[in-house]
Structures are given as C-alpha cells and as structure tokens.
C-alpha cells in the first residue's frame, strides 16, 4: 500500500547552541535553589498557619515533616535523575558489554560495578542481559558485579539519601554498595560456577548485532534526561509519598530512642535479623529510604539500617524467580548467600565504626 503523501518525514530536531543551553541551565538551577531554600518556611507555614495546628503537637510534628520532606525529596530526585539521565545517554548495554568482554577478574569486577550504575537498562531485561553478557565472553563473576550494582546503587537511592540523610550517608551507601557488588562478583567468579548456568543459555548464539548508531547532539541528551525524569518520577512518586507518610508517622508519634533497643548497635542479632526481614520485602529505594530516615532518627544504628535497606533493594524474591530461568538453584543459593554475607559485613562494620 502506498502512502498518500510523499513528504519525506524529515526529523525536526530541537537544537540549541552551547551558550544558550548553559545560560538556560544556569537560570534553571538558580531558580531551583531559591525554591529549595524556602522549603522549611513553606512547611511550617502550611502546618501551623494554613492548617492552624498547635506547635509541639504530635500531628503538627508529623505534618511539618511531611510538608518539608515531600517537596524536598521530589526536587532532589528531579535534579539527580535529570543529571544521571544525561550521563546515561553516553552509555548503552551494547557498549558496556563490548567493553567488559574478556576483562580480567578483579579489574573487570570493579569496572562492571561502576558501569552497572550508569548503563541504562530496565530491570525486566536482567535475563536477556545476563545471556548477552555471558555468551559474549564477559566472565560470570563480572556479569554478577554488574547485575548486583545496577539495582543497588542507583540515582533514585542516591538522590533520596542525599536529600534525607546528607551527602556522607549517600557516599557511604554508594561506596559500600559498590564494594558488595565487586566482592560478591569476585567470589562468584572464584567459585567457578559456570556449570550452574542453565544449559540452554550456552546454546544461544550471542552474536553482536550491528546497529547504526545515531549521532546525538547535546540537546538530544538533554531531552534524554528529561525523558528519564518523566519516566522515573512518574513511576516512583507514589512510593516516595507513601514512604514519607510512614516516615512522618514514625517521626511524630514514635517516642525517641525506642528503636535503640530493637535496631540499636548493642544487639548483635539486629543486623542478621534486619537482612532476614529485608530479603522477602519487595520495595524500591523510593519507598524504603524515607522510612529508614525516620528509623535512624529514633535511635536505630546506621549499620543495621544500611543492611536492612540493602537487602530490601538488592535481594528480592521476584528477581530470584526471574533469574531462575537462567541459573540453576545452586548458583541462586550461592548468589543470595554471598550478597547477604557482604551486606552483613557492611552492617557490622558500620555499627562498630560509628
């Protein structure tokens, strides 16, 4: 069937030059900063003036927390997701795979964990990605480093941690998350478990497909970042609000120090227990971090809370079910054990240091 119109559909690109882009960017960041600075005033005005609640009441404390944290977290997420989105436009899974194939063990694990953060891929592609990596000669342990780092250290977690708990905790989380990805991947590589991959995987040809690469202008990368903002914030905003609401409830109503006995650093069993509770829980970073902030405020120990957060985010039952398609049960068991041990180590370490 012939199309009626013969008009060539020329792709109209929006193109700005660099000076315009940076000027607009600077203005936008300045405006962002001004609004961000006003948020505490906005929260107390809304709670105590607009809603006329009494200062010092439980409900007042909860609501002020909610009205401050919600816009703050959303604004930070916006900035971080946008920035990481632009960064990600420089990477593709294909390039990452080509880069990682044939890399030596330890260096490969470190690179894979780092690339796991910035390579764009949807968590539902974990299985095809696994096959693509392994059949192209990326070592098994290196592939695991990538697959562990990708969900654990992500822009949503980092943006939220920075916003709610400060840059130090965000950096600790990123550092230890990367450490676990490198460590677990390295151990899995050392254990020589290649025979524990389902047999059909080896039979699929992982031939690299040829695709002409589109030339991206800087304005295309900005659009890419913007698409990431729409996609990610559109998906997580409800979890953020629910998480902050739960956190706000804890903040206003749970007495100070009550968490110290349950999740404090003096009870040795708190770290393993929080991992055991965390693994079956299936939540994303967006929902769990506001709760974590509130727990910390009530006397929970940092190591215990980190362990809880990591086991919720990095180890989840639905993911295991998906991975079962390509991994034999023994390898799944090893994967869970090694990652959980890494988390345990991090938990104890921080309870001892801090």
């Amino acid at each position: 069937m012939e199309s009626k119109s013969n008009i060539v559909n020329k792709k109209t690109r929006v193109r700005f030059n660099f000076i315009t882009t940076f000027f607009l960017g600077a203005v936008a960041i300045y405006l962002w900063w001004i609004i961000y600075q006003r948020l505490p005033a906005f929260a107390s005005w809304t709670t105590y003036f607009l809603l006329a609640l009494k200062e010092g009441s439980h409900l007042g404390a909860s609501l002020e927390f909610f009205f401050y944290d919600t816009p703050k977290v959303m604004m930070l997420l916006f900035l971080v997701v946008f920035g990481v989105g632009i960064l990600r436009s420089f990477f593709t899974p294909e390039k990452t795979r080509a880069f990682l194939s044939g890399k030596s063990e330890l260096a490969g694990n470190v690179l894979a964990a780092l690339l796991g953060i910035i390579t764009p891929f949807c968590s539902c592609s974990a299985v095809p990605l696994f096959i693509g990596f392994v059949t192209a000669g990326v070592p098994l342990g290196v592939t695991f480093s990538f697959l562990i780092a990708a969900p654990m250290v992500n822009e949503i977690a980092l943006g939220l941690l920075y916003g709610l708990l400060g840059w130090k905790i965000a950096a600790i989380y990123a550092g230890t998350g990367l450490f676990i990805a490198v460590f677990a991947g390295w151990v899995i590589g050392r254990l020589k478990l290649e025979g524990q991959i389902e047999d059909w995987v080896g039979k699929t040809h992982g031939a690299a497909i040829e695709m002409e690469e589109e030339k991206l202008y800087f304005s295309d990368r900005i659009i890419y970042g913007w698409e990431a903002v729409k996609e990610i914030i559109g998906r997580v905003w409800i979890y953020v609000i629910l998480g902050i609401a739960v956190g706000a409830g804890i903040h206003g109503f749970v007495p100070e120090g009550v968490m110290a006995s349950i999740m404090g650093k003096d009870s040795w069993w708190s770290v393993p227990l929080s991992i055991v509770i965390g693994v079956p829980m299936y939540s994303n970073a967006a929902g769990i971090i506001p709760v974590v902030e509130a727990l910390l405020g009530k006397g929970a120990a940092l190591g215990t809370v980190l362990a809880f957060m990591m086991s919720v985010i990095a180890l989840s039952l639905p993911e295991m079910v998906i991975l079962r398609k390509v991994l034999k049960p023994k390898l799944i068991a090893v994967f869970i054990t090694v990652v959980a041990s890494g988390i345990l180590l991090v938990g104890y370490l921080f309870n001892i240091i801090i």
Partner: protein
Amino acid sequence: MEIKVLGPGCAKCNKTEKLIREVINETLADATVEKITDMMQIASHGVFATPSVIIDNQVKCTGKVPKKEEIKKWLGR
C-alpha cells in the same frame, strides 16, 4: 512487513507494542506485529536489552521505547 516486539512483558515493552499498532492503524501500513515474551526466543535473536523491535529480521532499536516518528520512518511512512 513482519514486525517483532521483544520483551518479557514490562510496562515499556507493552507501550512499544501499543505505539507500533497505533502507527500501523494510522498509516494503514501493511504489517504484522508479533510480541515475543519468551526469554529463550528473545535471547536467540541476539538482543539483550528490551524492549527491542525487529522488522523483517533487522534490529531497529533496543532498550528503549521508540518514538512515533521513528516507527513511521521504519514503516516507510
């Protein structure tokens, strides 16, 4: 034309399929759409970022939801 959409059935994959069907309906292109959700089949196409679009055995895009304009271009509209 034979169009294959590869993806295990996540939101992005479904959106890709929906967009392609929309474009076909709008432009009255002569094409069939097949959704491939089986992991083994996806892997055997040599693709490892989903959603992917394959038209007449040629990989058109991987790992992202294509834009309508792109789909139109692939269909020659």
